[in-house]
């Protein structure tokens, strides 16, 4: 067993353990920390696949940003409404369907039906992030998308803050 396989097994263990903590933990806050473990594991997968920019983005955005948002979202829920009062069958059916679809899809992908090759691409020698940066700034490639992303973020910022403020005023 080479080092890469060993690393993969280690990261897979971390990811699965984090997901199981997220699912089975009794406290919602513990679930969030389990989710942090799982997301860090996913970042590890990106590293193994040679996608350094994705790995860094995963950590900066998901572990650093989205999880903080989840934590505040949980802290904002009133304690008396913390219990899940959705029926268990409704609560479980949607994730079950999503999980079944994922399982079928990944099984077919492993057979090589949907993906061109079973083998992973070799890790790039140079940093991938250089290529990403160059394609962002090249006007023949993704420059417009790059600037539009800024506009999109602006719209999201204004919209999200507006909705949050309205809810705040309603709760007052």
């Amino acid at each position: 067993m080479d080092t890469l396989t060993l690393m993969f097994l280690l990261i897979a263990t971390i990811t699965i353990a984090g997901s199981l903590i997220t699912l089975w933990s009794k406290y919602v806050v513990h679930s969030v920390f389990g989710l942090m473990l799982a997301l860090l594991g996913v970042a590890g997968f990106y590293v193994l696949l040679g996608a350094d920019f994705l790995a860094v983005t995963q950590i900066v955005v998901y572990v650093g940003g989205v999880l903080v948002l989840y934590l505040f979202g949980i802290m904002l829920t009133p304690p008396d409404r913390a219990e899940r009062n959705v029926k268990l069958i409704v609560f479980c059916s949607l994730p079950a369907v999503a999980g079944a679809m994922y399982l079928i899809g990944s099984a077919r992908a492993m057979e090589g039906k949907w993906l061109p090759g079973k083998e992973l691409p070799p890790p790039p020698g140079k940093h991938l992030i250089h290529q990403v940066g160059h394609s962002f700034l090249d006007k023949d490639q993704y420059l417009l998308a790059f600037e539009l992303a800024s506009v999109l973020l602006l719209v999201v910022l204004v919209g999200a803050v507006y909705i949050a403020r309205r809810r705040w005023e309603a709760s007052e």
Partner: protein
Amino acid sequence: MYYDFLNVAVLALGGLGFVYVNLLIFSLIRPNKPSKLKLSTYECGMEAFGSSWVRFDMRFYSVALIFLIFDLEIAFLFPWSVAFRDLGMIARVEGLIFILILFVGLIYVWVRGDLDWVKSFSQGRAIRLGPTAEEEAMLLRMQVEQALSEASALRTVEEGESSTEATV
């Protein structure tokens, strides 16, 4: 590329190891005599009561939302920061445009008061955290008046005592 992330992994493992190995060593050699007072949440502070699950202020959430947006901005600027040196002036201008568009958003939330902690969101209506200046002045006046009346009462008692002594 793996080599760079190996550096990260070594640093992370070193940090984790520094914490947990030390905790393990000290848990082996320290004496263990727990008591009820020692195990309380704040040993020499106020006694904790109620659940720690209190409902947080909505403002935390909107600040977290704003943080997330600028976090994403950092994620976009990261490849730009690696590449812009090779591409000359035009790349700098492109990055500047990106930042300026989001700067409009920052100005918006700033002006609308979403970054203010004390003020309410709605129409500059401030949440009062304490008494206003007028109420404070009135409170002070009442205290002064009370002190004056107490002092005068004390004086009449003393005068009365001294007069009775004189007659005796």
